[in-house]
């Protein structure tokens, strides 16, 4: 009985906290919305893979090639549509396949043939790799049908025919041509980096929120606030302290993530394409010195933003329980948003600079900037992220200068007046 009462007390003490209840409600609502968004996005990806029309540019007008494309179109239920040029096709369809001149005669003579696949990449998302897969699947159909055509032409059994059709993939990103395997590899790396940054941000946020609340609970806070030191100095020192501690965490996590990234490679690189593993080192090489500098700055900004946001939460929380109940869902929400971006898709265009407003999305904006070779995107995004971070620091300073830092924000109970 006593044990049951003790357990009940433990649960009720937390369950009756308005901050805890608000946190639960927020999380449920958030995950509900997020689940819906991810569901729609993945459904779109699956639909695109099965139902999308595929543009075909045929430079070969031979009867063999035309016959092959006709049969392939029937097999793919009319999803192959002829277009005059690759550019024209990419304006209408997610992928375009180019059959080169002389393909038909080559099919009859050679065992290894090349075909060209093009995709238009307009976002950092799961859609991009699925588009590549779409090309691979069409090429596979053409390869199998090609064997049948050769067998018919030569009057031999199809089992004696060996033909390998190799797709040479290119991605068009904002008018630029990028190797698709390299892009996939870099996308993977930047996403992993973004997740790592997200985890660190979440940790920094929760750590700093708890630190102020703990200081309040330790009852040293009031003495601290009456020292002849400006509140701004105290607030900024706390932000810097939170950043330094987060950097210590960064080093540990960075080492761990680097190990994971260097252990993972992109599957099935095509012949002729530049093979790249999904390592952080490849990403850093791609970005170059100035890109790495911007990426480092983005990490610093994210830590400062998270530390400040955490301090803001801790400052208006009466104790560690409230701070944890508020900071937890916010931290998780920020991280899950980042995780969800791969499903929803991060724009790969000039508007990528707006990602800076989230601070956490800044590495993705910098990446987009370098893929598109438009440095203005990175600069604008960094400027926006810096402004957001400074505003958050300013908000912390304002709270520290007000008595909210002491009396907090009470959701239900009023402070007892002594």
């Amino acid at each position: 009985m006593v044990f049951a009462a003790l357990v009940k007390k433990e649960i009720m003490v937390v369950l009756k906290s308005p901050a805890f209840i608000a946190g639960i409600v927020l999380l449920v609502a958030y995950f509900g919305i997020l689940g819906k968004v991810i569901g729609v996005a993945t459904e779109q990806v699956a639909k695109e893979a099965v139902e999308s029309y595929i543009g075909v540019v045929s430079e070969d007008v031979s009867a063999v090639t035309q016959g092959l494309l006709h049969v392939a179109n029937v097999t793919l239920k009319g999803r192959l549509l002829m277009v005059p040029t690759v550019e024209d096709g990419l304006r209408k369809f997610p992928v375009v396949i180019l059959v080169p001149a002389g393909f038909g005669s080559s099919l009859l003579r050679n065992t290894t043939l090349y075909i060209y696949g093009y995709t238009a990449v307009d976002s950092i998302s799961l859609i991009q790799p699925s588009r590549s897969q779409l090309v691979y699947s069409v090429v596979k159909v053409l390869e199998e049908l090609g064997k049948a055509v050769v067998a018919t032409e030569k009057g031999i059994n199809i089992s004696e025919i060996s033909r390998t059709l190799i797709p040479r993939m290119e991605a068009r990103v904002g008018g630029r041509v990028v190797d698709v395997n390299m892009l996939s590899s870099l996308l993977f790396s930047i996403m992993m980096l973004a997740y790592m940054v997200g985890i660190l941000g979440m940790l920094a946020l929760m750590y700093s929120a708890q630190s102020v609340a703990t200081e309040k609970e330790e009852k040293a806070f009031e003495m601290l606030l009456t020292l002849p030191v400006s509140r701004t100095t105290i607030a900024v020192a706390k932000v810097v302290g939170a950043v330094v501690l987060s950097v210590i965490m960064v080093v540990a996590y960075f080492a761990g993530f680097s190990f994971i990234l260097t252990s993972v490679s992109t599957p099935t690189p095509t012949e002729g394409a530049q093979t790249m593993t999904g390592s952080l080192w490849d990403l850093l090489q791609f970005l170059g010195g100035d890109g790495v500098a911007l990426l480092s700055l983005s990490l610093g900004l994210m830590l400062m933003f998270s530390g400040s946001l955490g301090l803001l939460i801790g400052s208006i929380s009466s104790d560690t329980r409230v701070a944890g109940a508020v900071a937890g869902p916010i931290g998780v929400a920020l991280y899950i948003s980042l995780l969800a971006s791969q499903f929803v898709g991060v724009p790969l265009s000039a508007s990528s600079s707006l990602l800076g407003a989230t601070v956490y999305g800044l590495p993705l904006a910098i990446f987009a900037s370098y893929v598109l070779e438009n440095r203005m995107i990175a600069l604008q995004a960094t400027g926006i992220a810096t402004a957001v971070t400074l505003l958050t620091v300013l908000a912390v300073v304002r709270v520290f200068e007000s008595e909210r830092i002491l009396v907090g924000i009470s959701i239900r109970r009023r402070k007892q007046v002594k």
Partner: protein
Amino acid sequence: MSSGIAVDVRDLVKVYPGGVRGVDGLTFSVVVGEIYGLVGPNGSGKTTTLRIIATLLKPSGGSVRVFGFDAVSGAMKVRELIAYLPEEAGAYRDLTGLDFIRFFLGARFRGGRLEEAVEEAVKIADLGSDIKRPVRGYSKGMKRLLALSVVLASRPRLFILDEPTSGLDVERSLRVRNLVREYARRYGVTVLLSSHNMLEVEYLCDRVGIIYRGRLVAEGAPEELKARYSVRNLEEAFVRAVGG
């Protein structure tokens, strides 16, 4: 304002969010060098008043001046002149007592003066070898002494002490009272304290202000108050003053 006034509280009002009135038109002053005690029942506004004087809270109305400096517009200057001991002062549990002392005194002193102040605080705390242990292992009394040592060794012009002997045993309480009195007399520091312990107030204070529901209902030297209400001790005077 007279140069002989350390703390001047005029028509002080503090309304908390939700309309709760913590202080409701409080007026009193503390003369330089005296020990002034604020007494009153729970919820009468003692801690709120001390927090406003210590620049932690902002008044909703009225004014507070400390050695002529406004507690709101001149908050930084006021902080240079005061040292505040909250009722439930604690310390950072993972720091040692010595680290705690050095951190707080380091905000006021530098170099040789800092070392002197640290030495003084260590002596006041009188925690022996425990001063080098993390605070998490300290008793409530040890933490109280640690916090008080920092306040006293700061040697400000005004001590603001909220229930200075709260939670201390008889022996330690007596030691704290003696220390406060010694510092006030030896260094000419003005003391404003709050207490529920009438014996302590009678022993320490030159003047006492009795507050009730956020207002001053009686003020004077302990002997004066006893004579005014024709009672034998301050406890009875307090009960009479608040209408008991």
